[in-house]
């Protein structure tokens, strides 16, 4: 029965209250462990297309008559257009339309470098770019606000400051035997999906619009585009079949989509607007930098007495206040916790969600602080974390729906115990050490999400849903879930997705939510179809329904006899069996979270500041694992992004102009294959018994969260140097080593 509920919806750690109609989830969870298909490694269904170069991404789509857009972007961090002359651009070869700052989202008061000011549509991308260079602008340059601390002082903020407190920090302080206080900083990093942001807009008359777009959320794009152009939502079709990475930056339509739509309307032709790599790194979002002033107190036995944090997020001109204080509030059992988070509004490009926004930054600070505390108390860092393990959400007293963090710690032990052996391999130049860090994050997903399952006469099944596969392999996981429920080999399942006109509403692929949101709906739809198959088979073969089941493409009767599925479906001729399913509610009164721990082994060249990460062990609890192959791939990908975040990636802004100096991939250094450590993935794989018919949580984000702190803690273990600022470049490493050598009283560590 459909049920109307008022529920809390969480995406990327942001909660909203909303009404949702849900079908009650009536299916029992499958038993734990690998099943026929679920829980076993399955190569992605469309891997061959991708490996052949035949997969058509938005970047590869060419429509008849399609024009190309280019955008004039502000070269100044804060400026006003005094005068603009688009005459020469209009007359340039191939140009079909020019839009000036009077057309939204273009602006004549750009508030950050890279903000869109004017746009051109031309026959080729080269012509469009040339025409943009012919637009003449007289700028009035204004003084930009670039310093986040100054913005906080001036109360120039994005959102209200978020102040949360439980217990009393002052009381905790009074009870403390040891207190550690430190300031941590994290840098701005850029997503750099290999496919840049892009969209193609094509109007059909003046009230129907098709948008081909590289996106993580076709339904969100549909809603926002419809709203902007005053169209019924069903008049906007959004298509994203193959997608070249997003990492949080492609959750919405973005200015480029509106520019393409406006130019398409002006010209009556389809228009593609594709960002160049430079534009991508200017204005497609970023993980904002942070300043974290943290304090922790503990009794001599390691029990935390208080945690106190002030967090300044350099949010930029727009965006939202990411939950940098979240880990401090959620990770440990501590009675007295106070966090204050500020979002500084600056003349810099807006932040966007980036793989566990806030938690990546906040975990770096918190987990380094914990290790500094462990050193002060002379308690083993793993033991300190165990002693402060929380059994329920201390924020609101809710129990966790499941939590296997202690099991993660248990599995971490043998890797942690390698410390002496690793340290012993140090010499005069290379110091080696081991560090660890814990992780907490959301990842439970939620309603609504819907799926249909269609079975044809040939006994093959199609899963139809309006979700998108952003590269993670979630389509393959859906095929596995349907195959399991229908007792079919996975190669008899098609997954049709990526088109709002050809499937029901599905979740955003962000916030580690695709599998936990979508998977249960697919299973429910498959179960609905399976029920119908059994009912028909019972009549055809004169058996009771309860003795029939589906297995290996057969209808099997427990009292003997089995029939190929095609025998029943073949009776339908052109008829089809249609199942539908929806995502049920999350467990009421419980907190659904993911947990994990990572152990890093590093080597530091103390003469040149080179840091080599030699090994990372990632142990995570995300409930049931659907596809171990895809899951370990997510873990490895998260860790290598974490490695870049820790060691080499940083968006640099000129301190006086606010201009981005690292727009290209030679200046902005993401890791290469030469930088990867050995990565060991260990997933606990115990279903969350309270969460949906699957017991699966999301895995996109957890693996990136503890990496930076684990590496920094390993560096401290190896060298005794406190690295409190990311990235740990050569100069930062050398600075920290110099500082450590000036503190003679430090505990002797390393070999």
């Amino acid at each position: 029965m459909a049920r109307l509920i008022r529920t809390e919806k969480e995406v990327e750690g942001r909660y909203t209250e909303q009404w949702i109609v849900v079908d009650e989830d009536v299916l029992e969870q499958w038993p734990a462990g690998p099943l026929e298909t679920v829980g076993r490694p399955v190569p992605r269904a469309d891997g061959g297309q991708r490996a052949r170069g035949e997969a058509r991404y938005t970047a590869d789509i060419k429509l008849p008559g399609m024009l190309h857009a280019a955008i004039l972007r502000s070269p100044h961090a804060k400026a006003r257009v005094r005068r603009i002359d688009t005459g020469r651009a209009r007359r340039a070869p191939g140009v079909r339309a020019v839009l000036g700052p009077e057309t939204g989202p273009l602006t004549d008061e750009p508030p950050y470098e890279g903000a869109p000011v004017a746009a051109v549509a031309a026959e080729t991308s080269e012509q469009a770019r040339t025409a943009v260079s012919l637009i003449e602008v007289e700028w009035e340059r204004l003084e930009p606000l670039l310093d986040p601390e100054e913005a906080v002082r001036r109360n120039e903020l994005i959102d209200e400051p978020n102040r949360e407190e439980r217990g009393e920090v002052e009381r905790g302080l009074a009870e403390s035997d040891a207190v550690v206080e430190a300031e941590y900083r994290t840098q701005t990093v850029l997503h750099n999906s290999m496919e840049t942001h892009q969209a193609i807009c094509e109007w059909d008359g003046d009230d129907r619009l098709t948008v081909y777009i590289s996106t993580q959320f076709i339904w969100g794009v549909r809603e926002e585009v419809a709203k902007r152009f005053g169209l019924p939502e069903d008049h906007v079709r959004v298509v994203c079949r193959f997608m070249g990475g997003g990492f949080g930056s492609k959750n919405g339509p973005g200015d480029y989509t509106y520019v393409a739509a406006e130019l398409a309307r002006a010209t009556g032709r389809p228009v593609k607007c594709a960002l160049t790599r430079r534009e991508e790194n200017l204005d497609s979002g970023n993980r904002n930098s942070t300043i974290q002033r943290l304090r922790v107190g503990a009794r001599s036995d390691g029990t935390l007495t208080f945690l106190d944090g002030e967090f300044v997020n350099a949010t930029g001109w727009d965006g939202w206040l990411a939950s940098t204080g979240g880990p401090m509030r959620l990770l440990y059992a501590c009675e007295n916790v106070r966090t204050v988070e500020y979002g500084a509004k600056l003349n810099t490009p807006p932040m966007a969600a980036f793989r566990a926004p806030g938690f990546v930054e906040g975990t770096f600070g918190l987990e380094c602080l914990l290790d500094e505390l462990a050193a002060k108390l002379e308690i083993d860092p793993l033991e300190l974390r165990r002693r402060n393990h929380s059994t329920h959400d201390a924020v609101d007293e809710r129990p966790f729906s499941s939590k296997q963090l202690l099991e993660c710690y248990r599995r971490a032990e043998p890797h942690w115990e390698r410390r002496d052996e690793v340290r012993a391999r140090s010499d005069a130049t290379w110091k080696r050490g081991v560090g660890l860090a814990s992780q907490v994050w959301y990842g439970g997903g939620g309603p609504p999400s819907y799926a249909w399952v269609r079975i044809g006469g040939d006994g093959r099944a199609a899963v139809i849903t309006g979700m998108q596969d952003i590269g993670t392999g979630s389509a393959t996981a859906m095929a596995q879930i349907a195959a399991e429920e229908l007792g079919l080999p996975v190669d008899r399942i098609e997954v049709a997705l990526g088109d709002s006109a050809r499937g029901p509403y599905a979740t955003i692929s962000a916030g580690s939510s695709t599998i936990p949101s979508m998977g249960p709906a697919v299973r429910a739809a498959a179960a609905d179809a399976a029920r119908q198959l059994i009912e028909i088979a019972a009549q055809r073969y004169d058996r009771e329904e309860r003795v029939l089941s589906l297995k290996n493409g057969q209808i099997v009767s427990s009292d003997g006899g089995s029939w190929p599925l095609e025998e029943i479906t073949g009776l339908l001729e052109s008829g089809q069996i249609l199942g539908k399913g929806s995502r049920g509610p999350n467990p009421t009164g419980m907190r659904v979270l993911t947990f994990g721990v990572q152990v890093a082994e590093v080597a530091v060249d103390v003469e040149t500041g080179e840091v080599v990460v030699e090994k990372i062990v990632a142990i995570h609890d995300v409930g049931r694992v659907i596809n171990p192959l895809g899951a370990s791939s997510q873990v490895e990908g998260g860790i290598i992004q974490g490695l870049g975040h820790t060691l080499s990636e940083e968006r640099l802004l000129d301190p006086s102009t606010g201009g981005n100096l690292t727009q290209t991939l030679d200046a902005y250094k993401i890791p290469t294959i030469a930088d990867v450590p050995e990565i060991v993935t260990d997933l606990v794989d115990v279903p969350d018994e309270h969460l949906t018919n699957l017991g699966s949580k999301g895995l996109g984000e957890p693996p990136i969260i503890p990496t930076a702190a684990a590496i920094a803690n390993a560096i401290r273990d190896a060298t005794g140097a406190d690295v409190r600022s990311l990235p740990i470049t050569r100069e930062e490493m050398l600075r920290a080593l110099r500082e450590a050598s000036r503190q003679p009283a430090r505990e002797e560590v390393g070999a």
Partner: protein
Amino acid sequence: MDILRPDSLEAARAALKNGSVALAGGTELVPLLRDRIVEADTIVEIRHAVPRGIQGTRIGAGTTLGELEVDPQIPDALREACRLAASPQLRAMGTIGGNLLQATRCWYWRLKYPCWLHGGGRCFAHEGLHREHAVFANAPCASAHPSDVAAALLALGATVRTDRRELPIAELYRLPTGDDRRMTGLEPGELILELEVPMPAASTYLKAMDRKRFAFALVGVAAARSPEGTRLALAGMAPIPWLLEDESALDEATPLPGNAYKLEIARALIRRALVAVAP
């Protein structure tokens, strides 16, 4: 724009006149043309006009880094410099002649800030961000020369033969001045044809960068020992490849507030390089 593909040196010299630019591997020039940092009416592809290949101690300017790095005849410093210079894709196209004439990676210059090197009045890196910039001879321009290969050749004491003259590689480069801001002394249209690289007793090239491969040098140190002594040269430390008398010459550097760390790295790499080439 036009493109010419002369098949002889004479034809190439005739084609290289005002408004034209010589293209070898293209890995440096193509992006500069695309970004309109270099403007040209005519591209003259010189691949069929300049020598390519290795003969004893002579290296054709059109030889790619990829060809050099696998050749057992060339000195270790040069081979390592080629191998560490860039990605395999870039090394397969990029030539040694072109590599010597690389422009700086200074972000202000690449992003076309109206800086001193572009003919403007000031160096933005001085007041701004300069972690990757020069620590020697960094006024009035703090740009760093990126060529690993040039540092290796400088340490090795190579000679450059152009279509007009022969000169020690040190003389190929010049520090820019207010009225002439070029970094090389090549005349307009002058082509590097060949390099003469004496065989050292031992040589090495060490490079510190922000990731393990495929990044420009924060610090590159080349060392070559010959009967006359051991020569040191640096990449990424000055606006041009930098010859260093000895380790103590690092004390003469004039680092900016944000790049003194380079000297610390250089000190360590120099010591290691000297150990590597010691008899």
